C-alpha cells in the first residue's frame, strides 16, 4: 500500500469516529465516550496529515505548523479548563468563531495559492462560499460572545430599516460572488470578505440575549458548512464529511433548540424581541408586591410537605447550587419531599441546570423535566424560584402581546405558595415584566441567592 493510500485510509477511520461520536453524544450514557472517540479520531487525522504529500513533495513549514499548534494549545487548554461554568456558552461561541475564521483563511490561502493557474469556475465558487460562510460565522460568533460576556447589551439592537439593510447586505454578497465568477475579477474577494464580516455582525445584533444559544448552534452549523466548502477546494473527503455532518446535524439541532423554547427558528432569528418589549414593559411598575425575610421563607418551607425548586440562571451566577442542595437535604431530613423542576432552556443553554445541579451532587432522580414537573407542581405546597424568571412567567400562557407568548413554562403559580428569590425588581434576561411577582400567592425574598439560601438553611436548622 502506498503512503497516500494509507493516509486516506486513516482519514476514513477518522471520519468514521466523527459519525460514531455524534451518535454517542446523543445519549446520556455514551456522551463522554463519544467526545473522547472524536478526539482520538482527530488526533489520528492530524498525525497522518504530517506525512501527507502535497503538490508532489512533503509538507513544508513543519516547524511553523508545530509552533502554531503549540500557541493554540497553550491558549485553549487553560481557557477551556478554568473558565467558570457560567461562562461556558461564551466559550463555545468563541471556539466556534475561530473555527469559522480558520475555514475562511484556509479558503483564502488556497485561492491565493491557485489563482494564478486560472482555476475552474466551480473551484472559485467553493472558495467564495467558504470565505463568505466562514467569515459570517466568525464575526457573528464574536458578537454572540460579546452579548453573553456582557461586553455589550444583551438586549436586541435594532435600528430603522434593519431587515431591509440586512437583505441588501445578503444580496450584495450574492451579486459580488456572481461578478467574481463571471469576470474572474479576484480583487473583489477582499470586498466580499469585508461584506461577509459586516453581514455576520448585522445578522446577530437584533437577536436577544436569551436566544443567543440557538444562534450559536446555527453559527456552529455554518462553520461546518464552511469547512465542507474548504474540503471541496482542497479535495479532502475528510473535511467534506466532518463539515457536512456538523452542518446538517447543526441545523436540525438548532430547530430542536428553538422548539424547546416553543418558537420557530425564523421567529428566533427575525422577530427582534425588542419591538414588542417597549409595549409590554410600560405599565406594570408601581404595583405592590409582598416581600419577606429569609426567616419567613424558612417557616413557610418547614411547614410544607412538598417543595418544588425551580432553578434558573441566577443560581449559576450566585454559585448557590451547593447551598441549595444543602437546603434540600435539611428539608428532606424533616420529612419534606423535594424535587427540582427543570425548564429545558433554564440558564443560558439547554441542560445548563442539569450540569450545575449535578456538580452539586443533587440526585439525578430529583430532577424532573418540564411535563412531569408541571403535573407534580400542582400538589406542591411551595414553589421555590431561585434565579429563574422568564421560565416561570405566566405571560407566556395568557398574554398574547408578550414576546414569549407560546413558550412552555413551569407553572409555578399552580403551587400553593410561591417563594421568589430576586436580586431586584429588574426584569429577567428577555427583558419582560413578570406577572408572577404580583401574584397574591407570591412572597419575594430580595437579596443575593447564596446569602438568602445560607440564612434559610440556618433558620431551618434552628427551627
Amino acid at each position, binding site marked *: 500500500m502506498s503512503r497516500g493510500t494509507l493516509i486516506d485510509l486513516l482519514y476514513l477511520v477518522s471520519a468514521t469516529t466523527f459519525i460514531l461520536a*455524534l451518535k454517542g453524544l446523543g445519549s446520556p450514557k455514551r456522551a463522554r465516550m463519544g467526545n473522547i472517540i472524536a478526539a482520538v479520531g482527530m488526533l489520528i487525522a492530524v498525525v497522518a496529515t504530517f506525512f501527507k504529500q502535497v503538490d508532489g513533495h512533503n509538507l513544508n513549514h513543519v516547524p511553523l505548523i508545530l509552533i502554531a499548534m503549540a500557541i493554540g494549545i497553550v491558549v485553549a487548554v487553560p481557557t477551556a479548563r478554568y473558565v467558570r461554568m457560567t461562562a461556558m456558552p461564551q466559550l463555545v461561541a468563541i471556539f466556534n468563531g475561530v473555527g469559522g475564521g*480558520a475555514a475562511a483563511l484556509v479558503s483564502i490561502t488556497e485561492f491565493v495559492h491557485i489563482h494564478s493557474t486560472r482555476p475552474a469556475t466551480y473551484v472559485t465558487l467553493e472558495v467564495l462560499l467558504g470565505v463568505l460562510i466562514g467569515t459570517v460565522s466568525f464575526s457573528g460568533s464574536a458578537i454572540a460572545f460579546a452579548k453573553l460576556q456582557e461586553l455589550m447589551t444583551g438586549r436586541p439592537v435594532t435600528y430603522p430599516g434593519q431587515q431591509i439593510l440586512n437583505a441588501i447586505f445578503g444580496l450584495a454578497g450574492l451579486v459580488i460572488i456572481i461578478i467574481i465568477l463571471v469576470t474572474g475579477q479576484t480583487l473583489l474577494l477582499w470586498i466580499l470578505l469585508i461584506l461577509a464580516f459586516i453581514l455576520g455582525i448585522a445578522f446577530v445584533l437584533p437577536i436577544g440575549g436569551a436566544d443567543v444559544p440557538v444562534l450559536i448552534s446555527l453559527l456552529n452549523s455554518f462553520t461546518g458548512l464552511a469547512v465542507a466548502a*474548504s474540503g471541496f477546494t482542497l479535495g479532502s473527503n475528510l473535511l*467534506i464529511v*466532518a463539515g457536512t*455532518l456538523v452542518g446538517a446535524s447543526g441545523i*436540525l439541532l438548532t430547530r430542536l433548540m428553538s422548539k424547546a423554547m416553543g418558537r420557530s427558528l425564523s421567529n428566533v432569528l427575525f422577530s427582534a424581541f425588542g419591538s414588542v418589549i417597549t409595549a409590554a414593559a410600560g405599565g406594570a411598575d408601581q404595583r405592590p408586591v409582598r416581600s419577606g425575610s429569609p426567616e419567613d421563607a424558612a417557616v413557610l418551607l418547614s411547614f410544607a410537605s412538598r417543595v418544588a425548586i425551580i432553578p434558573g440562571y441566577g443560581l449559576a451566577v450566585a454559585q448557590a447550587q451547593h447551598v441549595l442542595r444543602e437546603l434540600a437535604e435539611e428539608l428532606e431530613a424533616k420529612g419534606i419531599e423535594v424535587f427540582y423542576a427543570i425548564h429545558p432552556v433554564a440558564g443560558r*443553554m439547554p441542560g445548563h441546570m442539569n*450540569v*450545575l445541579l449535578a456538580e452539586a451532587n443533587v440526585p439525578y432522580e430529583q430532577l424532573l423535566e418540564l411535563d412531569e414537573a408541571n403535573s407534580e407542581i400542582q400538589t406542591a405546597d411551595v414553589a421555590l424560584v431561585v434565579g429563574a424568571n422568564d421560565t416561570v412567567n405566566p405571560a407566556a400562557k395568557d398574554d398574547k402581546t408578550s414576546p414569549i407568548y407560546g413558550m412552555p413554562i413551569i407553572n409555578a403559580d399552580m403551587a400553593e405558595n410561591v417563594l421568589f428569590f430576586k436580586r431586584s425588581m429588574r426584569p429577567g434576561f428577555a427583558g419582560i415584566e413578570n406577572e408572577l411577582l404580583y401574584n397574591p400567592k407570591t412572597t419575594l425574598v430580595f437579596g443575593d441567592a447564596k446569602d438568602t439560601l445560607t440564612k434559610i438553611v440556618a433558620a431551618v436548622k434552628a427551627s
Partner: protein
Amino acid sequence: MGNALLQYATVLMLTIFVGIEIIAKVPSILHTPLMSGSNAIHGVILVGSMLVLGSANTTPETILGFLACILATLNVVGGFVVTDRMLEMFKAKPKTAAAKKDEVAS
C-alpha cells in the same frame, strides 16, 4: 467538472442524510454538549490549515496559513476540552453505585 467533483458531491449528499438521521432523537439536556461536541469536530479544519501552510510558497500564503493553524488548533483543543468538562458533570452517580453492587453480587 471532473469525476472528482462528482465523487465529492456524492459524499456530501450522503453525509447530509447521516448528519440529520444521527441526532434525530436527542434529549434536550444533551443539546448543549452535542453542540459543543460538533463544534470540536468541525475543528478538523486544522487538517486543511496544515495542508495550506504545508504547501505555501509565498510569504502572504505562509502568514495566512499560520494564522489558520492557530485558529483551528484553538477550535479543536478548546472544543474537546470544553465538551469533556460539560459531560464530566453527567457522571451517573447512582448508576455507578448500582454497578458496584452488581460486581459484589457476581
